[in-house]
């Protein structure tokens, strides 16, 4: 296995309880260099506890968390993960430049190296023009970018982001994902917790679903759909009167007013439509839908409300 294929971060059967209430129940997870991992689950699933354990803020009751830093990160302070909290975790009464200086120093970066790194990060986050502005005067998108920028000054090998795009406009969201892509291209492993399912679907290399302190699904979207829902496409027919004809692969309801079939590929759809054309009474409506993360999520975690 090459170094790129060895995990940077490995969680092995991690357990953590608060006053007898299990928050993590044997979490095992791997994060690879350059990977963008989408991590999501219902509220109270244990995501925050897991991130706090990875950061070292909490000590697991059982299990282990290990970091293997690639050679490309050696010599830096990369072994400490970068943490981007959900809220604006910067000093609002300091300027952009001052915030970067303060957090850079806290990460142990000083002198000319810090100035050089601040210059790089200002360009990376497109905040150079606003370097002398107070953080509280920035727009929401700029504040989010500054929030991320303050966490990468020490070039972490692992970056943990907690809902980094909440409340930002599409342009800023695009910029934030572009920033993350630049990081992953440089080999940084990014773990992203979010409730924005469409972003996870389209942006993340891998998706992990967590519920009740356990990982209930781990893989790419097609794998998750296949494992949780079976075939990924669904064709639903609605009839005005009860259908008297038997249709292969379709399941009817009791009144025979609705029929549903699942397709492995959309390439099967023309064949289905051809059969329907031959019916004595064609369906009143045809609904074709591909399963997404929402369906996977609800299938895995249920529809009942959480905390």
């Amino acid at each position: 296995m090459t170094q790129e294929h060895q995990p940077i971060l490995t969680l092995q059967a991690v357990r953590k309880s608060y006053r007898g209430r299990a928050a993590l129940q044997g979490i095992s997870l791997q994060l690879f260099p350059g990977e963008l991992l989408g991590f999501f689950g219902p509220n109270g699933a244990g995501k925050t506890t897991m991130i706090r354990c990875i950061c070292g803020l909490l000590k697991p009751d059982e299990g282990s968390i290990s970091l293997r830093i690639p050679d490309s990160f050696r010599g830096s302070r990369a072994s400490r993960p970068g943490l981007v909290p959900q809220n604006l975790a910067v000093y609002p009464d300091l300027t952009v430049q001052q915030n970067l200086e303060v957090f850079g120093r806290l990460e142990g970066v000083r002198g000319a190296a810090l100035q050089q790194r601040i210059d790089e990060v200002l360009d990376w986050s497109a905040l150079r023009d606003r370097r002398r502005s107070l953080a509280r005067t920035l727009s929401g998108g700029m504040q989010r970018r500054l929030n991320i920028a303050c966490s990468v000054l020490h070039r972490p090998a692992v970056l943990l982001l907690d809902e980094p795009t909440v409340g930002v406009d599409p342009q800023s969201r695009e910029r934030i994902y572009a920033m993350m892509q630049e990081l992953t291209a440089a080999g940084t492993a990014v773990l992203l917790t979010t409730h924005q399912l469409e972003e996870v679907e389209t942006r993340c290399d891998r998706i992990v679903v967590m519920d009740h302190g356990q990982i209930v699904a781990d893989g790419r979207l097609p794998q998750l759909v296949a494992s949780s829902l079976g075939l990924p496409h669904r064709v639903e027919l609605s009839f005005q009167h009860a259908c008297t004809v038997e249709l292969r692969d379709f399941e009817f309801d009791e009144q025979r007013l609705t029929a549903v079939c699942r397709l492995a590929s959309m390439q099967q759809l023309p064949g289905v439509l051809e059969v329907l054309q031959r019916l004595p009474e064609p369906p009143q409506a045809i609904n074709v839908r591909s399963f997404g993360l929402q369906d996977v999520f609800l299938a895995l975690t249920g529809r009942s409300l959480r905390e």
Partner: protein
Amino acid sequence: MILTFLRIACLRLRNNPLELLLVFVMPVLFFSIFAMIFSQGIAAGTEKPVRLGLLLPEGNVAAAELQSELRQNSSLICTDLGVLPTESEGRERVILEAQNSSRYDLLLLLPTDFSTAEEARFQVRLVTDGQNAMAVAMVRAILEEYYAVQRVEGVVEKLQDAAQAAAEVAAAAERALPAVDDPEGQGSFFRDPVSPRRVFDGSGAPASVESELSPVAAEQPASVLDPPLDPAPGMSADVVDVDTEKLLTAGPEPQISVDNPQAADQQNPRIAMYAAGIAVLFLLFACTGHAATMLEEAESGTLDRILVSEAGLLQIVAGKWLGIFLMGCLQLSVMFVFAETVFRIHLWSHLDGFLVMAGCTSAATASFAMLMATLCRTRSQLQGTATVIILSMSAMGGSMIPRFVMSDRMKELGRWTFNAWALDGFQKVFWFQSPIESLRPEVTVLLGSSLVMSLATLLLSGRWRRGL
């Protein structure tokens, strides 16, 4: 609709125990504190007795009599502080210690040769720290009254002696010359115009003997007056005449000196006390407000980011504490420099004591603020709780009401507050002008409590890692 809003208000109050506490318990608490202060102190309806410390010479009868008299006075609470040392240095040390204890409004010192006899000077030294001017006036009046009574009693005694002597002379004369008839009262042997008269003038000095002719006798022919009649055997021929008016008004004035050694070279020392009281009160608020940034950072996630960084929890807590401590020192310095500039509190001549007290007070308040921030869950919770505690401490500790007007019980309660120890220390520095060594109790308590609270903060600081 209005009832709905009322219901909302009630529900919010019910769901917020801290607000309930602030709304209902805090007023009761404050009322209790002020009621205790005023019911046992400055407005009790009855006069608060003056606490008088007595430093008397050993084996002095007059001093013992005065002591006994003072003890019977319900306006005074007299405490014997032992025998007054004869040497000056020891005497001043005893005085300073008694003043520093803050247990006495006034010290009364009598010289070794203290006497109330008419021929001696009535000398009393009162030593005040200048805080309770009423005590000085009251004790001075009591002493003057005592002296006056002693004088009147002396006069009465003399009158009685004179009357008795006159009666004896008359009886002797009667026995010697029973047939003398002098209906017009002239040429009586009682009116010997040339005989010396003994006059008691109340000067305290031995009665002077002076000669004077009475107007009546001066008009008489010498034959009438001569020869003078011999008095009865064993009796003096002198006429005993007592000038009571002169007795009561003449003579040495009582010497009641009042010393305020601490304020002797200060123009306005009381301002220093106010500066300290206000400064400590606001220092507590400022420090707590600064410590609240820890909660603010925890709420925003900034603290998590810092905890993940190279800085450890100990460094974070220590860094915050240091920031609050330095801010406290600066705040106290600004306050006292202003007081020096405007009111001349003689800061520069007490700089060492000020620096010691400012440092200790700031350390204690910084630790208190950090502990409060660690114990509270939210910023608003901290502000509410801290307000209650700080105002209570300030009321009991002397920042709002001078401690010298409080009862001993309230003073003892005040000892559980920072304010009291800090103010006592500043009082020693600026009021009593005590040497820096005398600040040892205040320094020990303030630094000790600071250490204890800092350790408690460190022990509880693990909560920052667990999140709010």
